[in-house]
């Protein structure tokens, strides 16, 4: 028996999925319905489902942002009404998705495809690639979604002071404190606006508006002093980039 969750902010949309799923009641059991990404995260943590039906447009955090915060990713069948960007991403990564309103036949095909499934590892890789692609969409440039304990925190990019590489994670520093995000520095270098954020060092990226001054440090390297008092090492190449962006 596979365990499933249905995550959609419209009750009627969830009902369609539940109704169609009855045909598979001997193979798939729906553990819970969720109204939004937060409930979804909790339920995923609690039930460790094999499969989720996930709407893209949802309150606060969208389906992609929710998935980013899940550690052991289940298989996902996306449902969406209209989202050009998401559809492009699905197609590019050969991930099955259902366009609302979808027919029973179409739904069955998606579920059968899941049941006849590719190895879980391969599916996860596909989902990861999809998330990577989606997070470089313009809409995702304005905020970073992180998890602190069981809570979800949405950080507007304008609140970010600097980023520091931390093993497989990146620490996002704001006025209120720092948050861990399981992404690489390269990822942030690609997604954040290069006019406002500069990778000054292999392990650091700084919001240039936060810099008060730049002092010479050791041979070939500098220190950027931020408004918050933090001192950020600036490498030789980082200094060149910084000078370019600041126009000096």
């Amino acid at each position, binding site marked *: 028996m596979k365990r499933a969750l249905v995550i959609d*902010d*419209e*009750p*009627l*949309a969830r*009902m*369609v999925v539940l*109704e169609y799923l009855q045909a598979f009641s001997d193979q798939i059991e729906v553990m819970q319905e969720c*109204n*939004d990404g*937060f409930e979804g995260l909790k339920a995923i943590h609690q039930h460790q489902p094999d499969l989720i039906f996930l709407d893209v*447009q*949802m*309150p*606060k955090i969208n389906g992609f942002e929710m998935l980013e915060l899940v550690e052991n990713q289940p298989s996902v069948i996306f449902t969406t*009404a*209209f*989202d050009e960007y998401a559809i492009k991403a699905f197609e590019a990564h050969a991930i099955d998705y259902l*366009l*609302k*309103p979808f027919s029973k036949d179409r739904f069955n095909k998606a579920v059968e495809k899941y049941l006849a499934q590719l190895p879980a590892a391969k599916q996860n890789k596909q989902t990861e690639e999809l998330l990577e692609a989606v997070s470089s969409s313009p809409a995702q440039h*304005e*905020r970073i979604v992180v998890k602190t304990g069981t809570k979800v925190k*949405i950080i*507007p990019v*304008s609140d970010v002071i600097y980023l520091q590489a931390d093993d497989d994670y990146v620490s996002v520093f704001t006025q209120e404190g720092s948050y861990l995000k399981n992404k690489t520095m390269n990822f942030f270098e690609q997604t954040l606006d290069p006019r406002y954020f500069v990778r000054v060092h292999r392990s650091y990226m700084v919001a240039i508006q936060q810099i008060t001054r730049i002092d010479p440090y050791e041979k070939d390297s500098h220190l950027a002093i931020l408004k918050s008092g933090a001192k950020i090492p600036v490498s030789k190449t980082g200094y060149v980039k910084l000078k370019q962006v600041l126009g000096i």
Partner: protein
Amino acid sequence: MVHDFGFIWYIALTDGIVSSILLAAACWLINNNLRYYQPGKGSYINLLMWCLSLAGICTAGCRWIIPYLSISTVYMHFLSQSLTIRFFTDFLAIGWMAMISMLWYSQQDHKQTEKRKSEAEKLARDAELYNLRQQLQPHFLFNSLNSINALIGFKPNEARKMIHQLSDFLRGTLKKDDQLLVPLNDELQHLNLYLDIEKVRFGHRLDTEISCDKHCGEGLLPSMLLQPIVENAIKFGLYDTTEKVTVSIRGEIEGNNLVIMVQNPYDPQTSRPKGTGFGLRGVQRRLYLLFARNDLMETHQNDNIFTTIIKIPQV
């Protein structure tokens, strides 16, 4: 040629080079001139004058410069004898140059105008397409159809009702002429269709309050002006918070203005920092085009409530 008249090569060459340089300079001048200034229909006479005077200058140049370089009385005689013919040759050459450059540049100009025109047309087409797409609201439409799909299974009567609401709403949208002023009551009626559909989709979360007395219901406003504001309020309300959402719409007559206030809850923490969305900018633009005033729409954000106020002057 001058050589053929029996002058030594040196004199012939100097003559040739000097007159060619002068002629070339004159041609370059007229060509450059025409690049930046295309004579109108009536000013061809000016151009002619230009050519004449340039030819004159060239000839005079020959007359004064060549003697500096080679002094020979026979040649001087030849030079003054040939001035007339030099003048006309120069004039012909310069005139020819002027004509060619005029044609060339006017053609270039024409090409550029064409290009600009097609670009402007493309922009207008894109804007129109965008508008059409906005009117159709694909996200709203497909989600509504999906809700109907769900209702058909177990509440066929409600499904049928929703199909009627959706049709009425779409028909209303298509029929509206956005140049027209309509009474607030009519606009609210159309808006109610929209709100009813949204309530079927988000019934558990969405509440609306509409207050408008008889007097203000008769106030006039541009049609479809309120729609994007309410859409914006619902979108912010529903996608920015996870709790219950109440969107309120209040109309009042204040002096000579119809004042409409739309409020929705929002979350300052997660809202896009930009504040006013594209929909609201469109409203502001329309108000400006209709009344030539920029102070008719304002937005406030406090206590997790987003307020949009529009004033419509009554005539």
